[in-house]
């Protein structure tokens, strides 16, 4: 366990600058957008007040977040792309360079599946750290909004309302339903394991391994996608369909981890 945790830390440490850069980029773009949009709104209100025009209602933090759909989506999409590429790079960087890091990694006095799990855990830490950072940013941005907008123009809103007003948050990143969060990120975790095993297939069998990896991803993708879109409501009750889905996910997960551990322990060469 201790060795596994040390390996997790090693992987987190290696990606720390990239992670902090993503956080900085997210903060910079979102704060800039928020400040600009809020200033425009406040200016508009002041102008309306000066001309004696009556606006229908004050505006809230949720309104401003709703206005910033595209600007908020940009850093999130960039982060998704970077982390998506790093799912591959976290393995391949160990083989790249003059002094291959993989030599040292696979000769450590620990079971090799710890390497596999540590790399996966590191990816999950990065993803959830970015999501958590987004939540912290929203708290900070709400405070910033309250400082910038005079109370006579401001309407209070719930934190969940601000999250719900942005489609990227509510549909993908931070669904308000806890079970939805678990299901979405659970499928994401499963997808990471499938890609890891695909990388190991390629690393184990090289050129033919690419074909195996593509086939493996296609089969697992079809199984996961089939489970997601399982539409047998004409015969099954919803809870039964949920049980079938979970069985499919567990089977894919079990097979993927078994194959991944076997490849990393017995097949992989540097």
């Amino acid at each position, binding site marked *: 366990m201790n060795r596994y945790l040390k390996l997790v830390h090693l992987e987190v*440490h290696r990606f720390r600058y990239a992670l902090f850069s993503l956080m900085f980029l997210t903060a910079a773009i979102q704060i800039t957008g928020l400040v600009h949009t809020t200033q425009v709104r406040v200016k508009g209100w002041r102008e309306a007040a000066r001309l004696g025009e009556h606006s229908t209602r004050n505006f809230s933090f949720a*309104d401003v977040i709703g206005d910033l759909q595209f600007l908020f989506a940009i850093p999130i999409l960039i982060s998704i792309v970077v982390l998506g590429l790093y799912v591959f790079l976290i393995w391949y960087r160990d083989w790249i360079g003059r002094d291959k890091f993989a030599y040292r990694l696979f000769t450590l006095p620990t079971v090799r599946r710890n390497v596999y799990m540590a790399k996966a855990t590191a990816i999950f*830490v990065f993803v959830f750290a970015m999501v*958590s950072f987004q939540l912290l940013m929203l708290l900070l941005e709400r405070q910033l909004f309250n400082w910038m907008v005079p109370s006579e123009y401001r*309407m209070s*809103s*719930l934190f969940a309302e601000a*999250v*719900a007003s942005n489609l990227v948050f509510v549909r993908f990143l931070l669904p*308000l339903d806890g079970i939805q969060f678990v299901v979405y990120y659970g499928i994401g975790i499963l997808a990471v394991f499938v890609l890891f095993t695909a990388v190991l297939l390629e690393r184990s069998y090289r050129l033919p391994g690419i074909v195996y990896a593509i086939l493996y991803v296609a089969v697992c993708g079809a199984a996961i996608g089939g489970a997601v879109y399982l539409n047998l409501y004409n015969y099954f009750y919803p809870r039964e369909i949920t049980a079938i889905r979970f069985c499919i996910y567990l089977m894919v997960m079990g097979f993927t981890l078994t194959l991944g551990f076997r490849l990393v322990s017995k097949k992989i060469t540097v």
Partner: protein
Amino acid sequence: MKRYMITSALILLILASLGTFYAYGAELRLPEYKLQTLEGDLAEASKLTLLGSYVGGKGSYPIEVSTSGSKRSEQTFSNQWMKNKGPLHDQTFSEFKALYKEHPGFMRGKMGTDGYYSDQDTLIFAKASYTHSKDTDQEGTIRWSIDSLDLATGKQVRYTDELTDSVQYTNVIDVQKAGSEIHVLTNVNRVNSGNELIDMVFNAETGLPIHSVQVPLGKPSRNDRELQIQIIAEKKPTAANSRVLFLVTESSKRTDNTVSASDTIPTIFSERLFEYQYASGDVKELPLVAGAEEENRPGSWTLHSLERATYTTMHLSEEAVTINRYDLSTGFAHPQVTIKASQLGKGTISQAQVADGRIYLLLQTGDYFKNNSMPIIAVADITDGRILYQGTPAPVKANGRPDDQLDDAQFLNMTIMQ
């Protein structure tokens, strides 16, 4: 430990922020409402639910309010994934809740409310579907399937029958049992020739089709006219009823080359009410009840219902609702009941329903968008029109919403649990 600071800090950040968010921050709370009594007995409104939207703040969220309080009425992801009941569970007829509970196997995959029949011995579900032929020149096939559950033994059997025909679609309207016969009243829609109603009769013991009856409801008197058939079947989906009613309206034919909006409203020439007896196959014309001829007066409409032997018509306008009830087995006409909106203080009638000996009224008290006015609901006795309850939804808990958003709810519909 200092060495592991970054990893530890990230994990702490994840646990603290996601944990706090999903424990406290993710709930999109709306103000809570409750039906507040203006006068009368609150128990009279216990079956009533008002449906509407909360529009305070950003966005709009479906909400429902009853005597026990309010709740968001949209299907959440958790509900969709964890529900162990079928699609009819949320219907206003409570009998489906009981059917899911008592016969989950039989109810599996059964959609639609019109194909059910039950008595103390049997539970029946019938379905009719039309399959087009792969060759467009060939006729397709109408298929009937009848699932019958013996409530004493738990034995379930399926009967089927099919007919080659060329139609647009078919659907089951009513299922009844008369002696040893199962009657499946089926609507058959044909291209350019309106609807046909076919009573498919099956032997309840063997499942074999006995015969089919095309219910004779007349033909249009001229080529430029058509018949519109309104089916008035037993209101409670599974209840037994020996008859079904048809309101047949002869109107001008709607054509595709209309030039103005007024052309799309067909002229009505006659309305006739027929009664079809399942057991005998007899069709009898009934004297048209008062009020039905007013159906097309602008701003008013008439609703018809049949519950056991009682045929009820409810004529609604913004100012008043008038109920006529007839006992079809004796021919007795109950005293007409009229409730005027002016009796209820303020507002105009927007909806009314009759259920279990009560008249439920929903009155809108003003322009919602101007003054956020809450509606009034009223419950009256169907026998004499006496008002038994009047109430209005009122906020009882802010749930973190500012005071000026508490009345940002609009309730435009009501349902009655029967």
